[in-house]
């Protein structure tokens, strides 16, 4: 820290320029979040009308529900497995392209595409491909009858949504890892190679430490994204089932709030989710970032 503060000569111009963004953030984040905060302490009839102030009752209902904790557990499992998978594959692909393996220019171009596919479309594609009776993967059940059935087996269903989510996140991670790897001076990597370090060794001892800031950034983004953006995939592929095996927190908020029209219960849950994501991010900054050196 140099202690120098950045100052703008045109203070009011700066304000003017960020005003549209502030307006958007207020309209689409602070206002609804404030509304949710109010609803979380009342009982809100679907069509409006007289709300009752019920204090902590909605939160007590949420926390007393074993199925809510089930959903928290499933969300954590989902977030950590899909983050690990998506970052692992993203790093692997990025290192291939970085080493300029055959055809890397094509890969560099097409690996990013999956990120542009909307979550429900990803879900639909995975549902078709992994359908146990009719999908491409159904051949597994021809070889090993009954091995794969996400419609009835909770573990398979979780594997399915983790794969789908990881698939769409790999692209994003790939781009960041590739940028990180390419910013490492060639001479360093080449020096390592000349000293006899193999590709794996160079990655572990040289490249990974040097791209630690990227790595850390991606962990935060992937975990947050797995918590809040998984709805589309779950809704299309498993619908939260079988027997609540994939009932992630965002999906439960949707089913309680929009399907069940219990807005207050959903509002309380979204606040809990928001605080949880904030806490997770805080923990990462507090404890993981200590090991990261930025320059």
């Amino acid at each position, binding site marked *: 820290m140099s202690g120098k503060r950045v100052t703008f000569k045109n203070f009011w111009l700066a304000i003017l320029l960020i005003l549209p963004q502030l307006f958007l953030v207020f309209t689409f984040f602070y206002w609804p979040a404030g509304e949710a905060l109010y609803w979380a302490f009342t*009982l*809100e*009839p*679907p*069509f*409006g*009308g*007289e709300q*009752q102030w019920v204090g902590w009752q909605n939160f007590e*209902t949420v926390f007393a529900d074993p*199925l809510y904790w089930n959903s928290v557990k499933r969300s954590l499992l989902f977030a950590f497995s899909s983050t690990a998978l998506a970052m692992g594959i993203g790093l692997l692909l990025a290192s291939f392209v970085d080493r300029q393996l055959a055809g890397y220019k094509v890969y560099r171009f097409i690996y990013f595409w999956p990120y542009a596919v909307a979550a429900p479309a990803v879900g639909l594609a995975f*549902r078709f491909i992994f*359908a*146990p*009776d*009719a*999908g491409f993967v*159904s051949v597994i059940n021809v070889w090993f009858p009954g091995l794969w*059935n*996400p*419609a*009835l*087996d*909770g573990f398979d269903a979780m594997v399915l949504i983790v794969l789908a989510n990881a698939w769409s996140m790999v692209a994003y991670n790939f781009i960041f890892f590739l940028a990180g790897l390419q910013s490492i001076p060639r001479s360093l990597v080449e020096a390592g190679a000349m000293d006899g370090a193999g590709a794996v060794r160079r990655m572990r001892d040289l490249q990974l430490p040097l791209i630690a800031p990227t790595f850390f950034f991606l962990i935060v983004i992937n975990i947050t994204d797995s918590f809040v953006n998984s709805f589309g995939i779950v809704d299309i*592929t*498993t*619908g*939260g*089932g*079988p*027997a*609540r095996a994939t*009932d992630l927190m965002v999906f439960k908020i949707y*089913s*309680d709030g*929009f*399907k*069940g*029209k*219990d807005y*207050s*219960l959903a509002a309380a849950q979204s606040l809990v989710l928001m605080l949880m994501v904030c806490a997770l991010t805080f923990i990462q900054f507090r404890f993981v970032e200590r090991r990261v050196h930025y320059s």
Partner: protein
Amino acid sequence: MIGAAAAAAIAIGFSAFEASAQQRQRFDYWYGLTGQLGEVMADHCKRFNESQTQYEAVCTGQGGYDRAEQNTIAAYRARQHPTLVQIYDAGTVNFMLSGATYNAVQFARDFNMKIDWNDYFPGVALYYATSRGEMWSFPYNSSSAVMYWNRGAYQRIGRNEAAGTWEQLENDLRSLKASGHACPMAIDFDTWQWVEQFLAIHNQSIATRANGYQGLDAELVFNRGLLPRHLTNMKRWLDEGLVRIQTAQTGKTLVQAFADGSCAVTMSSIANHGVVGSTASGGLQWSVAMLPVYEGFQRHNSLVGGASLWVMQGKSRGEYQAAAAFLDYVASRAEVEWMPTVTGYIPITNAAFRHMQETGFYNRPGFAGRETAITSLTFTPPNENTRGIRLGNFTSIRSELTSEMQAAYTGQKSVQQALDDAVARGNQILRRFEQTMRGRQLP
């Protein structure tokens, strides 16, 4: 100069638009159905708009029944709601308690509509009526559940009629399996045909207080009585390979698995009769029959499914007149008869059904058998167990039951335990709903 000219042009454009709007009184109508049935909804609007020159229905599909309800609620809170909306059976309670609707009987009286309330089949009318029998919405697309069975497969086991009882059905499924049919019957986790219709036909309550009609303090009771025994049988049949689970997640839905011949029997809405007819694989001989009953039980009427049309509060007199004209139009005998010709839905009035029978509609190929749904729906006069289900937040109760059925069928817990848990959780949902609606009474 150019700006002024453009403004003038826009102004002229607007006044022309207003003039045409004045010539034809418009009103907004939102519907939930999608796909081929959504096209039929749009067609119905078009037919109305072409049938007269005074009014114009502006019809917008909302992308699903639940979306139609969600969007209407959100729009109502923002005072941007339509005049008329198609709401599915399970949304009835929310709308009755909303204070946001114009009840149908009152509306028909205020706008001199020609509706003959007594001509609707009682099983249809009472689902949308208050506990005192006063209708608050206009019945529209209606169905009931039937059993689809593969005649060809049955012939190979030496039978030429569908099973009337569950005992007979079990024997049939066993023979079908022995004859080499890998999937004798397809089931899924939809509570509508597998639980709700089952309970009605066997005259069993789903909840106290006349299935909720008499008050918001109703409690679920389906973990007692016949249902535990039935679902235990179902689980046993599943383990024996007599039934198989078919959902979109496994790759084929009930209807697809039946239509391609891979499953010999299934149970679903009569609304799928047309779908099976148009997608059946070549040479599939099939028919529909009423859902089976257990031996020793008297058959009662099945429940209506589908949706009704609700008029919303807070619109102008002109919009209401237009909506009234539309509602009169779709309730006319000719239009009630039109719906079953383009969908699998049933005619909902006695007059239309009688006329269709007289003109031989049900003898025509492709339509034969559809009267089964009406026979089932009108089998007995509706009683407290069979007129409908009026429970708050019923979609959540359905999804709790679905999850518990999944848990029971996959062996995570016993059927009785699963039903007890579904009832316990369902009752919590009902109590929360009762508390949220404190001070409001079911009409």
